[in-house]
């Protein structure tokens, strides 16, 4: 016989498949077989359809697609013979599922079979219906199933009961119809029917509240009686499992009692006796007995409080915990999790056993025990528990380390009694398993460190020691590098020594060594980036190592990673050229605000702390919010203590880019920072040439085309080719004004409108070397806007070059600066520089103008900076 004809017997095909040596061979065999089966189906071959379907099922089990067999199943179901029907139904259940539309075609066949006189056929149909019926089928066939619930044959009844479960799950509205028959089922004698009846009742209670009430009132007593019968029943060979009569029924009954007793005190009372009886009488040396005890304990835990029963339950759990069988211990641990919610004292007694379980060799038990220990921690036992856990961390397997650290860190964070203990524990965890620690954890650690100002010296010294021993743990290195950068001088000077601390001597070069080793050993971006900025900080704090640091940083100028290259170049330029601002740039960071940090962290802050902790100049759009405050402070050129995070990331972005140079005057620090950031920015972008003559805002990023006026664009570009004009949110309404301004910018002649009210000019700023005069004018149609012409006069005998004027105004004002006429101011008032400003006052009439200005210039190759505030604006500006 041709081995691949459709006449192949199932076993021959299986043998053929088994003898295949490779997967490709197997695929070929299966493909040939499927082709043969398909041919047989299309030829409508009746003889072997039985075999073919069996073969199809085997193939399906192996994982190959078998959709073509579905119609064959339907045909087989419709055929009169029992074997064909049987295999057809089996195929139906295996090869199809409720989502296929083909299922609808079967509804009619199933209906006919449900009404069949032969009980086995009806049973088949019920089985199929129970396994895969969909909602529509359920609705159609529900009445049939209801009828069958009262059939004379118990086999049918039990199957009908389970079928009903599926129906009410799919169509919950039909639940009411089944309540009464279900209650009747509970009085059965046949165990199979009883079992399914109980399950039906359990599900009914879950689905509908009325059913729950009904059962609670009417059936609780009956159920208790049934359970009593089962418990006390004599030996029945049919249902006996290792000496206990029908443990499955026991368990189902207990579960139904659990559902009925939850939240209902009187129902719980009726159950108390039987529960006590089951708990005490059942033998626990066999698995079946233990299963019953487990279910019993679960029930006791869920029903209303009864002190005696609870004690009994916890005792049983204690016995389980000390058993040698891992299975039993596992279920005990499971149950204890629920018990903790009710009675944590009792569980605390088992703490030592639990700690032993955490170290067990079985992974499932370890996981459960760890969850339990985590729930058990409170202030009194946190120290000892943490000690145990950390000791175990050192020896456990690496897959488990991730879980363990994830649990230890929140414990330490929440329950730490004092900061120094917290820092110690976290350092230990990081040294042992730093690579498994999540980012939020070490962020939080840094926040805590900054807030514990008396512990800075201690922290940095401990970190230094830790890094010597455990230098390959990434997160430890990151935290250490950050702290050394911040508190480097405390490390070297042994500042802030605590009692009982061993003194260590660390020289500056040793500290720099640590960072150098870190940057060369760890090749991932965040660590290296943090090392670079730490080096920058150290270069300012350790002046003796400045040259060496500069060399290290120079090395990364050619790095292929953009971030590192950018940082290296920028930091190097700061180190080499900008000594005057360097020390202020890298001043000590203030304490990060813990409360806002934890709330922001809860609100899913995007990661990437390291990049944003770095230079303020790489400002990505998604600056992690919590670092905006140190960012602001990093730029703080005055010594103002601006601690509160001034604005969210988005606003800060705006400020930095100078889109709207109006800042809140109440925070002069931030005011200054904006200038300084732009200053540094300007320096870099100009690459050595004199800074752009324009005003304080970012020159290039915001092109003039932000205005929606093309004509203005053209004009702007025409009139100010050398310096892109500053982009402020110019008042939209005054298009005429803009055009005129555009024209006006080309000439240095101040635009004086004749019909505006004349306003006195003021001497805005005067020092021994400089005088600034403001001349005002206004358009009558736009009283809120004032045009100012500023004139700068040099009062000293030296020439000033690289002259830059910057101004900032509070939020209710808008400022627009035109480019200056030149940037060289000749000496002794022989010439002057003029620059036009336009100020719009949204609170015109209510508040007068105020302005802060900053002027920088070069005199005799020295950079000089002058700042001042102008308060003497005329009232009605």
């Amino acid at each position, binding site marked *: 016989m041709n081995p691949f004809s459709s006449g192949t017997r199932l076993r021959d095909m299986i043998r053929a498949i088994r003898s295949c040596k490779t997967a490709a061979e197997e695929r070929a065999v299966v493909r040939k077989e499927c082709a043969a089966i398909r041919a047989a189906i299309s030829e409508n071959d009746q003889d072997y359809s039985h075999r073919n379907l069996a073969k199809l099922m085997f193939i399906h089990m192996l994982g190959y697609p078998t959709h073509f067999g579905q119609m064959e199943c339907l045909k087989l179901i419709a055929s009169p013979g029992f074997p064909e029907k049987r295999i057809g139904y089996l195929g139906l259940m295996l090869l199809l599922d409720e989502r296929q539309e083909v299922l609808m075609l079967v509804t009619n066949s199933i209906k006919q079979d449900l009404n069949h006189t032969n009980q086995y056929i009806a049973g088949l149909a019920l089985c199929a219906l129970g396994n895969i019926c969909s909602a529509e089928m359920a609705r159609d066939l529900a009445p049939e199933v209801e009828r069958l619930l009262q059939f004379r044959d118990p086999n049918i009844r039990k199957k009908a009961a389970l079928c009903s479960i599926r129906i009410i799950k799919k169509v919950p509205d039909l639940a009411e119809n089944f309540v009464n028959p279900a209650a009747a089922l509970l009085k059965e004698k046949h165990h199979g029917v009883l079992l399914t009846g109980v399950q039906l009742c359990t599900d009914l209670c879950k689905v509908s509240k009325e059913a729950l009430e009904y059962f609670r009132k009417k059936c609780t007593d009956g159920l208790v009686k049934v359970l009593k019968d089962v418990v006390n029943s004599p030996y029945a060979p049919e249902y006996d499992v290792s000496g206990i009569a029908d443990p499955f029924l026991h368990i189902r009954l207990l579960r139904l009692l659990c559902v009925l007793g939850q939240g209902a005190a009187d129902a719980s009372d009726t159950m108390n006796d039987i529960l006590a009886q089951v708990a005490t009488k059942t033998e626990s040396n066999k698995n079946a007995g233990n299963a019953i005890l487990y279910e019993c304990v679960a029930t006791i835990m869920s029903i209303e409080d009864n002190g005696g029963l609870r004690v009994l339950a916890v005792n049983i759990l204690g016995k389980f915990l000390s058993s040698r069988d891992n299975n039993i211990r*596992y279920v005990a641990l499971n149950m204890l999790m629920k018990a903790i919610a009710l009675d944590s004292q009792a569980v605390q007694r088992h703490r030592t056993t639990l700690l032993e379980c955490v170290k067990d060799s079985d992974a499932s038990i370890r996981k459960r025990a760890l969850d339990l220990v985590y729930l058990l921690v409170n202030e009194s036992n946190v120290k000892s528990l943490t000690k145990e856990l950390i000791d175990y961390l050192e020896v456990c397997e690496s897959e488990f380390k991730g879980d363990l650290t994830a649990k230890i860190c929140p414990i330490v964070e929440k329950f730490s009694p004092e900061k120094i203990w917290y820092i110690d524990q976290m350092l230990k965890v990081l040294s042992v398993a730093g690579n498994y620690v999540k980012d939020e954890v070490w962020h939080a650690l840094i926040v805590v460190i900054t807030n514990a100002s008396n512990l800075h010296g201690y922290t940095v010294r401990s970190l230094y020691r830790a890094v010597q021993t455990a230098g390959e743990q990434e997160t430890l290195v990151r935290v250490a590098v950050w702290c050394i950068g911040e508190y480097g001088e405390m490390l070297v000077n042994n500042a802030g020594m605590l009692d009982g601390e061993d003194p260590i001597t660390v020289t500056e070069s040793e500290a720099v060594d640590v960072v150098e080793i870190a940057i060369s050993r760890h090749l991932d971006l965040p660590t290296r980036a943090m090392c670079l900025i730490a080096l920058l900080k150290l270069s300012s704090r350790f002046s003796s190592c400045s040259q060496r640091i500069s060399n290290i940083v120079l090395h990364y100028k050619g790095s292929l990673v953009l971030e590192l290259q950018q940082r290296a170049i920028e930091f190097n330029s700061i180190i080499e050229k900008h000594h005057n601002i360097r020390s202020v740039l890298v001043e000590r960071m203030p304490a990060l605000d813990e409360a806002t940090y934890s709330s922001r962290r809860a609100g899913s802050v995007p990661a990437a702390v390291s990049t944003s902790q770095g230079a303020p100049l790489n400002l990505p759009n998604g600056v992690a919010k919590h670092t905006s405050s140190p960012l602001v402070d990093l730029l703080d050129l005055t010594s103002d203590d601006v601690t509160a995070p001034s604005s969210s990331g988005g606003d800060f972005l705006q400020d930095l880019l100078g889109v709207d140079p109006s800042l809140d005057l109440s925070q002069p620090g931030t005011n200054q920072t904006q200038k300084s950031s732009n200053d540094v920015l300007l320096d870099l972008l100009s690459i050595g040439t004199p800074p752009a003559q324009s005003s304080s805002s970012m020159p290039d990023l915001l092109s003039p085309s932000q205005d929606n006026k093309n004509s203005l664009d053209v004009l702007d570009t025409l009139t100010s080719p050398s310096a892109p004009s500053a982009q402020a949110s110019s008042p939209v309404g005054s298009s005429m004004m803009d055009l005129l301004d555009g024209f006006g910018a080309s000439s240095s002649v101040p635009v004086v409108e004749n019909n505006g009210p004349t306003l006195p000019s003021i001497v805005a700023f005067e020092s021994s070397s400089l005088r600034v005069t403001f001349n005002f004018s206004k358009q009558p149609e736009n009283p809120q806007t004032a045009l100012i012409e500023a004139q700068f006069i040099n009062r000293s005998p030296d020439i000033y070059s690289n002259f830059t004027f910057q101004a900032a105004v509070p939020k209710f004002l808008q400022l627009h600066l035109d480019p200056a006429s030149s940037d060289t101011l000749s000496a002794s008032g022989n010439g002057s520089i003029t620059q036009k400003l336009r100020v719009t006052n949204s609170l015109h009439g209510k508040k007068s103008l105020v302005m802060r200005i900053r002027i920088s210039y070069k005199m005799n190759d020295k950079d000089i900076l002058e700042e001042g505030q102008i308060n003497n604006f005329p009232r009605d500006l």
Partner: protein
Amino acid sequence: MGIRFVLMVNKQGQTRLAQYYEYLTLEERRALEGEIVRKCLARNEQQCSFVEHRNYKIVYRRYASLFFLVGVDNEENELAILEFIHLLVETMDRHFGNVCELDIMFHLEKAHFMLEEMVMNGCIVETSKSNILSPIQLMEKAS
């Protein structure tokens, strides 16, 4: 509810019987079987018979060369499922007489019939061996 699937897998990881009580596509099934089998085969005798996988638990036991795996919901009583597995094996033993892996392979549909009599839609229906086997014996007599 209750039981999500029943699998019988041999020591090389080949599935010998698979019955699912919830809908999963073919690829999902294969992936699931691969993962679970790998986990169970890697465990030794001393470890407990329950494995947690995603949002359900696997209860397994090894009989000779065949692993019986049952996937259940988290609320199910694991020890009871362990008993159920034993019941299943005893039933098949009574029918086939000293059942072995080859018996199940070559009489796959009979094994399915038996399982269907015992579990329907994820719930245990019948636990009496004679009740389970009577329809099957009748059918064999008829054919």
